[in-house]
Structure formats: C-alpha cells, structure tokens
C-alpha cells in the first residue's frame, strides 16, 4: 500500500529506517543554511540524528506540514472552516465557524462547516458580530460557552474556542466547538490561538482577492448590459464585447476612448456618433434642468400670484376712492401678467416630446421675450416681417424644440451684431415669415459681419466656434433639434448687404 503521509513525514520515516552510514552521508553542510538556529526543523533533525524517536515532535512536524498545505490550497474563505477542522490536532472538534466582516459593510458573512459535511454560509448582523468580536478580543483564554446570547448566529452547543483577527479592511472571528461541555485542553488552546498568526496573511490574501473578483464581476455585468455596443481592444485585439458577434462589430466604426493607465488598450462605443453623443447629452441635460426649474417656479409663484389677484379684485370692488381703485386694478393686471408669463415659459420648455398645434405669431413673440435678458446689453432692433398678412399661421410641431432653435438663432444674431459694432450698420434683426405652398419658412436675418466663406461648411459642427467664450454647441444642437422636427436649418450670407440668414422650413397644418 502506498504511503499517504506528507512528503516531510516520508523523509522522516526513510531517515529512521536508514542505516547510520546513510545518515552520515547526507550533505549535512547544506542543511544548516535552511534551518535557523534552534528552529523547529533543526530540532527534528537533531532528534533524527540522535536516532531518538520523539512522537511529540513528529506530531508537530505533521501539523506544520498540514498547516502549510492549508495555507497553500485554500483560495476562498468559505473553504476555511473545513480546512481548519481537517488539521489533525483539531480533528476532534465537531464544527467550525469563520465570521468575516468587511469594515463599513452593513452585514457580515458567517461561514460554517461541521463533521457531518454540512456546509453553510449565512449573513450575520453587525451588532451581533461586533459584540462577539469585542467579547473574543477581551477574553484571555478564548474559551466561551453558549450561554452567550448568540444562538441565532452560531451553531454551537457547550464550550467553544474563538479567536479574533483584526485586519486593515476586515474583522474576522474563527471559532471551533466540540459541541460538548468538556473544556478544550491547554495544548488545544495554545494551538488554536497560534493558528491566527498563520491565518492572518492567508485571510488578507484571499479576502482581497474575493473582493476584487466581486468588483470584476459587477463591472463585467454592467458592461455586458450597457445599452450600446461596446468593445475593449488591446493592440487591436478584441478583449471584450457585449455584442454577440464580436468580429462584425470590430469592423464597424465606433467611437474610441483610450483607457488611462493601460497601454495600447482602448474602449470603443458604437451606434452614436461623436457629435450626437456630446451635443445631445449636453442639450438634454440643459433642457430638463430648465424645464424642472420653470415648473417649480410656476407652481411656487402660482399660489401667491393668484392670492394677489383675488385680493386685489376684491379690494378694487370695495374701493370708494377712484385712484385707489385704479391702483388696485393695476396690481391685479400685473399679477395676472406675471402668471401668464411664467405659465407660457414652462409650456415652452415642457419635456414632452409630442407635437402640438401652435400659433406662430404668438409663439415667436414669446420666444423674443425669452431672449430679452440674454441680449439686453446689445443695441438692436428686432422686426417681424410677413406676420401681418398671415396672422393665424398654425403649425403642428414640438414647441420645446422649435423654441430653442429660434431662441438660439436670435441670440446668435444678436452676438453677430455686437461683434460688428464698430461698423456702420443698423443693428437690425429681422424675423421673416414666408409662406410657400403648404410650408412656411422662418428666417432669422442679422446685419452683422456674416460668416467667412472658408468657415461656412464648419458652422454646424459641434465644438466649432469663433466666439471667445462659446461652447460651439449652439448651432449643432439646433441642427439636431431641427432633425427631430423632420427638417434642416439652412444658412446663407446676405448679399449685397452684409449679414447672415439662418432659416428653417416647416410644414403648415
């Protein structure tokens, strides 16, 4: 039958059965290098040399060997209870718990194994964990019994041994029990306590690894579920993709992000072009913020304004002095006006994507009001042409989008005028309506410097700007919005007079 003893033990046995002659022929000179003075191994070797068989030493040697194997082979915390119980000197114990709390986490893990091969992982609440940890820490002999109020968390009967290990990011308790009332022997206590020194580096290694594995798993899951096609490449080799057909995606045009700190590795995103991703994101954030703000404002102002209006009306009706009456009526009118303004603004910026019917003249009027504060330092005259004859032009459109397009075009026109202030011009912005068959063209015309011919092709590009503090997003956002309305913004320089014309064509109702 083959000898199942650990390698070290086999050697010992071979030594013991060998003759003195063989023993003397061993390259002893080399050995002391491996043994520190008075080391355990040296003692074993000495005893061998003296041909004295020391069972105690042999047992200890065997234990060390087992421990070494435990430390090498355990890769997960949940294997640890079983591994501890396998150690020969602790073999007579019935069950083992290893409790782990990652500092800062709301709950701890309770790993359990017993000799009936029953294995379990449970959660343990932090108050229970902490009370046990402190108790164990304070105890000198590390012997406890189940009179402690821990029945729900620990499967132990009678006495048990427990020891705490305090790591940087974790608190750990390991605990063994015979499930009897016989106290553990003094040797067992020493051995058990000594175990912590070996377990500490092991736990540090495997707990950190487990945490990293978990992090990787979470990251992988979120990458897999990312709504756009995504590729990670290293030296043009695909490392990861959330698309089932990697090769096909690898050939398509994707947006590329270099990954910081990892050489030659990039992440690529599909579907959305670079232009769309940045401008749309920027824009939708701005709109939803504005929409929310205006909504809140409307509701917060509604109540007091309504109160003002009500009270004003009441008092005006009761007033005997005609001057007082007039003033009160003026207050009511103003309260009403404020209410209408805030209501219209929040309508302009509502986040609904639906198309609704708007009256173009009223609509443009409101947009002009909106631009007042942003262009107030610019000397200008805004004129509307073509509205008179077509008083009741109605469009079916997304008013939020259209507002922003016209708003932006007017602001741009204002800025163009400002930049050309030194020149002789009239500082005029014209908003011109032209009805052609079943469509209407809204043109915003300024008499600023116009656009240099070499830049004409770039003006709708995102991040393209000639202004010092511009983001270069305005026109590209407008073009995106126009696309959502099913149309396009056209540009041309005026001729023969200077200036620029931006226009948008929309179908009539």
């Amino acid at each position, binding site marked *: 039958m083959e000898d199942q003893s650990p390698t070290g033990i086999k050697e010992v046995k071979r030594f013991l059965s060998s003759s003195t002659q063989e023993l003397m022929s061993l390259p002893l000179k080399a050995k002391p290098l491996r043994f520190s003075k008075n080391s355990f191994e040296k003692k074993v070797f000495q005893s061998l040399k003296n041909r004295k068989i020391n069972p105690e030493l042999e047992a200890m040697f065997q234990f060390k060997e087992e421990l070494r194997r435990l430390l090498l082979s355990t890769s997960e915390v949940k294997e640890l209870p079983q591994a501890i119980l396998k150690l020969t000197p602790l073999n007579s114990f019935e069950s083992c718990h290893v409790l782990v709390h990652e500092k800062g986490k709301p709950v701890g893990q309770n790993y359990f194994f017993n000799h009936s091969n029953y294995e379990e992982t449970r959660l343990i609440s932090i108050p229970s964990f902490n009370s046990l940890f402190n108790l164990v820490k304070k105890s000198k002999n590390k012997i406890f019994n189940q009179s402690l109020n821990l029945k729900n968390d620990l499967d132990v009967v009678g006495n048990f041994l427990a020891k705490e290990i305090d790591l940087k990011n974790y608190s750990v308790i390991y605990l063994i029990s015979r499930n009897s009332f016989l106290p553990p022997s003094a040797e067992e206590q020493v051995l058990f306590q000594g175990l912590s020194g070996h377990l500490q580096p092991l736990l540090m290694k495997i707990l950190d690894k487990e945490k990293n594995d978990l992090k990787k798993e979470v990251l992988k899951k979120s990458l897999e579920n990312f709504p756009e096609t995504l590729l990670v490449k290293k030296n043009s080799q695909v490392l990861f993709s959330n698309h089932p057909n990697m090769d096909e995606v690898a050939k398509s045009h994707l947006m590329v992000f270099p990954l910081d700190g990892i050489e030659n590795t990039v992440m690529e995103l599909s579907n959305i072009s670079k232009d769309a991703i940045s401008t749309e994101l920027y824009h939708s954030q701005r709109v939803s913020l504005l929409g929310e703000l205006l909504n809140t404002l409307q509701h917060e102002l509604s*109540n*007091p304004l*309504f*109160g*003002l209006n*009500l009270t004003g009306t*009441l008092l005006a009706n009761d007033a005997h002095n005609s001057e007082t009456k007039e003033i009160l009526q003026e207050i009511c009118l103003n309260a009403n006006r404020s209410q209408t303004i805030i209501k219209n603004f929040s309508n302009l910026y509502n986040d609904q994507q639906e198309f609704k019917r708007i009256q173009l003249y009223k609509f443009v009027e409101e947009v002009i009001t909106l631009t007042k504060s942003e262009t107030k330092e610019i000397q200008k005259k805004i004129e509307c042409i073509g509205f008179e004859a077509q008083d009741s032009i109605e469009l079916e459109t997304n008013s939020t989008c259209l507002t922003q397009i016209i708003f932006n075009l007017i602001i741009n026109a204002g800025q163009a005028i400002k930049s050309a202030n030194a020149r002789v011009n009239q500082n005029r912005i014209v908003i011109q309506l032209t009805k052609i068959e079943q469509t209407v063209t809204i043109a915003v015309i300024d008499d600023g410097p116009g656009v240099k011919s070499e830049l004409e092709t770039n003006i709708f590009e995102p991040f393209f700007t000639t202004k010092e503090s511009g983001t270069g997003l305005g026109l590209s956002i407008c073009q995106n919005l126009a696309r959502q309305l099913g149309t396009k913004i056209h540009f041309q320089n005026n001729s023969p007079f200077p200036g620029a014309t931006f226009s948008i064509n929309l179908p009539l109702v």
Partner: protein
Amino acid sequence: MYKILLIEDEPLIQKSLKKLLEKRGVEVVVESRGREAIQLILNQKFDRIICDLMLQDISGFDVIEEAKGRFTMAEISKLFIIITAYSSPHVIEKAKQYGCLLLSKPFENIEEALTIFLSAGAP
C-alpha cells in the same frame, strides 16, 4: 346656515375666498394647518370642505384620508372639493380615487368657482 370649512395656507387666497363666500351668505371657517383641520372635520359639522393640497404640515390628501374616520367614501366625494396650484396628472388621478371635484388655481372664472363651492358636490 350653509357652513364651509376652507383649508388654505396662502393668506391672501384664504382671506379673499372667505370674504367672497361670506358675501354669498354662507358661514366660513378657515384653517391653514392640516392637523387642526382634521380636528375640526372630526368634531364639527360642515356642508362643504374646500381643501388645498400643499399645506405646510401635511398634504390635503392626508386630511381627506383622516376624514374617513367619520365619513364614508360616498360622503367624502360630495363633501370635499380639492383646490390646487399643482395639478399634475398624478394629483388628478389621486383626486379621482376619492371621487372629489378638483379645481386648479388660479381659477379661470371666480364666480363660477364660487358657484361650484356652493353646489351639491360631485355627481
């Protein structure tokens, strides 16, 4: 005499509505806090309760919920009229559950609103 409880925390609206309703010959009790209003509802008799939703302490819906201690749902739907400046779809849906009439502030027509307050309530 027809007795109305007006729960409204905007002082100008509260005072004006009280005055307007009194002009129409009804008795008006006003309250701006929800909890106090609940006590009034549970201990006094009103022909109509006009309730704002955004009160300082609790919401108007909480007030109506407490009124269930004394009234059936059918009675609540007739007794209460909700007035609010915040008529989101969610709020309208919830008002529907109680079967109460809901008027958005500002009222488009004051006289009409007053007539509704003095009417028989939700059909």
